[in-house]
């Protein structure tokens, strides 16, 4: 009956398989079968040789498909592409094809990164298919624990909830018995539930929990024992899901209900004293190989703890702290630790900072800059990343750009002293002493006072400088600084000239991003650096960041009014990738021509809130605003914010909803919503919403919600 296709397959397996996967093969009787069902039917009883051929052809087909560009995929039809690729993955695990299965296991992380943006609600969801295939096929479960843990957490976002079952199954996969399996699944459930807080979330949690109970029928003591260990863990003590569970499950014993739990919790290593001891020794002995080995040993222990419990905070913090200590001597090692931290916590600004610093110390300031651009786009609430990027820009002479970044940063973080001080220093360098003085006046932190005094001397305002020095001396006891300022004041005009020279000279020493270290050959640094920077994957990631960084830089140039330069950068990017969402969105935020272009491409990006918001404005009608709310119901607050920014006096209902949203409790461990709530609350209090602040924040929100395509990995 289907012999004609099988003959074709024997003659040309790749071509025949391609036709079958694309639904263009003639398969009498199987026409309505999905491709994976058809393959199961055709090869279920096939001999080993035919199965081997299929295994090879399918692996090749998946690899070739993987190489299609975004434009090719869009031209082909994204829903069709996602459906067919998902069927290919499904066929691997349903037919237990060994070669393709090994390929999938070897490439699971890359595949997930690539697939991540390929999700078109309500039914086309390639990340879900990748996760499902991974959970079915991965045999080396322990090596992927961090991945499954990450996915469990990602699934707390309702858009990604469909990853949860596979992620929990992945966590449970190495288990040798049912008890361990349940423990793995409950672990996944708690990691997911840590990100839940509202009433809707309660229902989501209870649905998952009840399903697990139905899946593994067991008496209450069984569940009490399983939960006992999990609920005693640090991060679960105050989580709302604990209360939801206890309210619902009367069978959990009193100790859990009262929260007075004892016993089986996994013991944490004594992290804080251990880190302090290592830091102290680093200060006393310098960075030595034995010390680095001890650091590595501690991080291994913390990673094992994270593997076991899913609680990776200690690992991430320690990797960042230790990395910061060694970054000048062994930047390659620090880069590796930054990567480790980011693989667990991709939105950790300190890990991104460590990555940027390490690259800088490896003489790759160019790469470091792109890292900071991308980090800032991803984590716009981080003051430190913006500050560091401004320092890098300053070092390479892009002073105007650095100044703009700091000015915006100070609006977003008005109490962040390092921002203020950095901006003051930069203004002084540009000769704008009085502006710098205005900026720093009234501050009491040590550096502000010191800088203010120094700049007052440069401006020749000696009596005021003396007054500030008195304050400085009263509050701070930095003898070197006091001596310097006193000497300059005593020197009068000569002191003023020296102060002017200090601030305005182009001496590179004053403009270093940070002091360069001296790598120690005995630390085998070169080998590590080679391993980390020479890695294909890292290079691919950095190359992608460069492309995104160029667009982010263009955004800054737009803000500075340097339109021709900015437009050229966006145009260059669009010449390479004519439907690059980030470039189109950034362009549309500033220029009508790009806005028209984005409007023409909008149909191909139906689930992108960034695109929709970038196309809104003062002339958006109430009907158009309302049309946005249904498909993006979970992000209604962002839509409301855009609406309020563009129609500050004309939309009381949106304003009211927005205010209500700012008063609700943010999801646990979600710094961006917390930051947004605070900032939006502050902005709503202002009488004039059309000022810079509101628009800057709105643009940040829009840029942050662009889902960068397949080039930027989820596992950074």
């Amino acid at each position, binding site marked *: 009956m289907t012999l004609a296709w099988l003959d074709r397959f024997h003659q040309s397996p790749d071509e025949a398989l391609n036709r079958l996967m*694309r639904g263009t093969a003639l398969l009498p009787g*199987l026409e309505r079968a999905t491709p994976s069902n058809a393959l199961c039917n055709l090869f279920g009883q096939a001999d080993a040789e035919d199965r081997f051929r299929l295994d090879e052809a399918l692996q090749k087909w998946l690899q070739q498909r993987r190489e299609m560009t975004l434009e090719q995929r869009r031209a082909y039809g994204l829903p069709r592409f996602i459906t067919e690729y998902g069927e290919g993955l499904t066929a691997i695990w349903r037919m237990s094809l060994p070669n393709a299965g090994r390929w999938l296991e070897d490439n699971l992380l890359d595949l997930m990164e690539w697939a991540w943006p390929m999700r078109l609600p309500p039914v086309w969801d390639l990340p879900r298919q990748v996760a499902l295939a991974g959970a079915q096929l991965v045999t080396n479960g322990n090596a992927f624990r961090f991945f499954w843990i990450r996915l469990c957490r990602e699934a707390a976002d309702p858009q990604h909830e469909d990853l949860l079952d596979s992620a929990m199954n992945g966590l449970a996969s190495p288990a040798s018995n049912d008890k361990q399996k349940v423990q793995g699944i409950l672990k996944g459930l708690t990691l997911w539930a840590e990100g839940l807080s509202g009433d809707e979330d309660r229902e989501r949690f209870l649905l998952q929990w009840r399903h697990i109970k139905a899946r593994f029928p067991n008496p209450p003591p069984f569940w009490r024992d399983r939960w006992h260990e999990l609920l005693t863990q640090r991060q679960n003590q105050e989580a709302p899901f604990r209360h939801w569970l206890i309210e619902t499950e009367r069978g959990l014993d009193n100790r859990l209900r009262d929260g007075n739990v004892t016993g089986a919790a996994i013991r944490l290593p004594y992290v804080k004293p251990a880190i302090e001891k290592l830091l102290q020794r680093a200060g006393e002995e310098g960075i030595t190989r034995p010390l680095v080995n001890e650091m590595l040993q501690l991080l291994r222990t913390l990673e094992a703890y994270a593997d076991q419990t899913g609680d990776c905070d200690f690992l991430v913090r320690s990797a960042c702290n230790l990395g910061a200590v060694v970054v000048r001597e062994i930047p390659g090692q620090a880069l590796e630790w930054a990567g480790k931290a980011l693989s667990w916590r991709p939105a950790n600004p300190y890990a991104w900072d460590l990555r940027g610093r390490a690259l800088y110390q490896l003489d790759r300031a160019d790469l470091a800059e792109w890292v900071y651009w991308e980090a800032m786009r991803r984590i716009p609430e981080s003051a430190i990343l913006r500050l560091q990027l401004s320092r890098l820009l300053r070092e390479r002479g892009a002073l105007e750009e650095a100044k703009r970044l700091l000015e915006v940063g100070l609006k977003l973080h008005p109490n962040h002293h390092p921002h203020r001080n950095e901006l003051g220093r930069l203004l002084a360098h540009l000769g704008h002493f009085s502006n710098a003085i205005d900026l720093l006046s009234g501050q009491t932190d040590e550096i502000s006072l010191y800088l203010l005094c120094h700049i007052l001397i440069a401006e020749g305002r000696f009596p005021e400088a003396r007054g500030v020095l008195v304050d400085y001396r009263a509050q701070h006891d930095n003898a070197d600084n006091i001596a310097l300022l006193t000497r300059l004041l005593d020197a009068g005009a000569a002191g003023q000239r020296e102060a002017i020279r200090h601030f305005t000279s182009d001496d590179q020493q004053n403009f270093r991003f940070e002091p360069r270290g001296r790598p120690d050959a005995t630390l085998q640094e070169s080998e590590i650096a080679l391993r980390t920077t020479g890695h294909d994957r890292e290079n691919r990631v950095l190359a992608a960041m460069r492309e995104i960084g160029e667009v982010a830089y263009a955004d800054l140039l737009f803000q500075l009014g340097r339109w021709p330069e900015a437009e050229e950068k966006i145009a260059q990017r669009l010449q390479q990738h004519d439907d690059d969402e980030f470039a189109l969105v950034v362009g549309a935020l500033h220029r009508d021509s790009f806005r028209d272009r984005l409007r023409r491409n909008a149909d191909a990006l139906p689930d992108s809130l960034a695109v929709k918001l970038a196309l809104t404005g003062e002339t958006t009608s109430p009907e158009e605003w309302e049309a946005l709310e249904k498909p993006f119901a979970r992000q209604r607050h962002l839509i409301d914010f855009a609406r309020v920014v563009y129609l500050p006096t004309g939309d009381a209902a949106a304003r009211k909803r927005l205010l209500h949203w700012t008063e609700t409790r943010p999801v646990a461990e979600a710094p961006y919503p917390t930051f947004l709530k605070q900032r939006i609350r502050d902005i709503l209090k202002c009488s004039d919403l059309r000022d810079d602040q509101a628009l800057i924040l709105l643009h940040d929100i829009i840029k942050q919600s662009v889902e960068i395509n397949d080039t930027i990995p989820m596992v950074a």
Partner: protein
Amino acid sequence: MRPAAGPFSRWLLHLAGGKTPDVHACNYLIEERVQPARQSRYETDYAGSVTGMDAWLEAHSDYLTDRIYQPCPETFTAINGDAVHSPQLDTSLHLLRIERLDPALAELGLPLDHIAHAVEVFHNRAQPRDPHVTRDDIQATLKKLAQILNKNPFSQRPRFAALESGLADEMEANDWANRLRNRLGLAHHDPGVAGPPIPVALMRYPVQSVIGYAKTVPEVKHPLTVPTVLDHAFCEVFCPAPKEALYGRTMDLEGIATGRGFIGELLHPRIEYAPGHIYKVGAITDARPRYDSKELRELHILLLREETERHDFGHCDQAA
């Protein structure tokens, strides 16, 4: 449906007029419900220059991608007005579908008998086997199963559904899955002689729920249509129904000799399944009947002619 004069028309007529007429060419020619505007678009934009089967399959696949496998298939829009089902359809009637469960079971991590039991408990046809598992727990599992089925990318395509009437015996039989597979003409659910059973769910939902759900999609003008040759991939166990028939007709894999009546079938847009829609869960265990597709089709057309008194229907050489 007579194709416009041109290479496609010549090739199609040749294919249908041979000693062994090609079933897909014949289906195209005997189709009576495709509006001229729709046909014209199909032939102008996709199939007009086709003169070979591979090329036709490619063109048809492109058409399906562009026009049918979309959030709102053109099957349910104004351009398919001639295939609209009679508005007199009783909305309290129930529709049936068979859904495969293999990937869903893997995702849920559950064996088939576990789900089957859960469905029986949910519909009060059995008591929970385990005293520690509540009805709420069971409902949660079925809700998750429904969610997974709702995420099936193929669910966005026009959904074939059968009218329940005339299927009571099959639905209540112990081997309901095998019997319904045959009655509904689902030849592709075939475990073969030695293959593993195919886990399936019998979905049962009222016509009203389809109409209600379709109202949430503004582009949908006609939520219930009679299947035409353009609404899906070519299929040898599909035959268009004459325009006088109220419904499409499933092709019974066991043939007409059994003396059973036709089962009506319709297309409707994707709906969101709820736990209550999962009526039964079981497995297709038997290989599909070894039918002769030519004979099966001839008998099917014969019965269609008798039922609609359209004795000229289905002669693809005459249609040509």
